[in-house]
């Protein structure tokens, strides 16, 4: 998002853009906010804050472009810049630790799990959801953006301010870690191997 004004919208048009292009994404934004904060009140604040910022900086939004990606970017930035500091949940992110995980050979190895398609399909929503929630926030985020929200790699790169190559490698590692967790659930629950 560039904050440089691109176009002046009359008030009526701003309201129309807000209603027709921004508000329809409130469901997925709330879901994203909840999976970042794990708290209903925090999620409400984060979503509300995102919409207020979106309206305030509406001049830097180009009508007809991808409003959802634009809003997700604001939400992600709000979470990192404003929110994480005051969040009830202390930040779990230690970037050195994250980079260490990124650079570790261990996560690059193919996890030759005993997971089978049937095992995955037999899992209940809670297990998938818990496995996703247990991932460190940067890994969780790429899975949400890609698999849940269907963003393309180039959109994710813009939302997260990282190169596409990093999107791809982070996603790959996130999936390995997720699979590892699912494998753990499968073993605990005694799913058929």
């Amino acid at each position: 998002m560039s904050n440089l004004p691109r176009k002046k919208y009359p008030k009526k048009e701003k309201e129309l853009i807000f209603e027709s292009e921004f508000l329809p994404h409130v469901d997925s934004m709330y879901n994203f906010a909840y999976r970042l904060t794990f708290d209903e009140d925090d999620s409400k604040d984060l979503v509300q804050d995102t919409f207020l910022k979106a309206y305030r900086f509406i001049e830097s939004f180009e009508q007809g472009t991808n409003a959802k990606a634009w809003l997700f970017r604001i939400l992600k930035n709000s979470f990192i810049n404003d929110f994480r500091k005051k969040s009830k949940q202390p930040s779990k992110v230690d970037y050195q630790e994250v980079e260490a995980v990124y650079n570790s050979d261990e996560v690059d190895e193919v996890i030759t799990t005993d997971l089978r398609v049937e095992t995955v399909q037999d899992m209940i929503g809670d297990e998938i959801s818990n496995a996703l929630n247990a991932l460190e926030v940067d890994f969780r985020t790429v899975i949400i953006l890609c698999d849940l929200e269907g963003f393309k790699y180039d959109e994710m790169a813009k939302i997260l301010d990282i190169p596409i190559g990093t999107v791809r490698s982070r996603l790959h590692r996130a999936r390995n870690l997720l699979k590892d967790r699912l494998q753990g659930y499968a073993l605990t629950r005694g799913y058929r191997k």
Partner: protein
Amino acid sequence: MGLNSTHPFDDNNPCNGKLSGDCLELLNLVLDQEASPGQYKHFNEHLKNCMPCYEKYNIDVAIKKMIREKCADRRVPNGLVETIRAKVLNNTSTE
């Protein structure tokens, strides 16, 4: 390509469970619908001859589908949209 080729998409030389970096990269591109038509074709041909890739791909597809179906479960609390609308439209000078 000859029999001695180590190219992962040489059908005479499947992954044999090693799932090379090239394979994984392509698998993810296909999974996320980011592959070019040529890459799709190549990958589909490869899957016919490589059970490890075939299994991994199907598991990845199943997980992706489960995430989409099971993890979008948080409903917006009652009144939030109205609150947002009121704040935004009536208090546009908020800094």
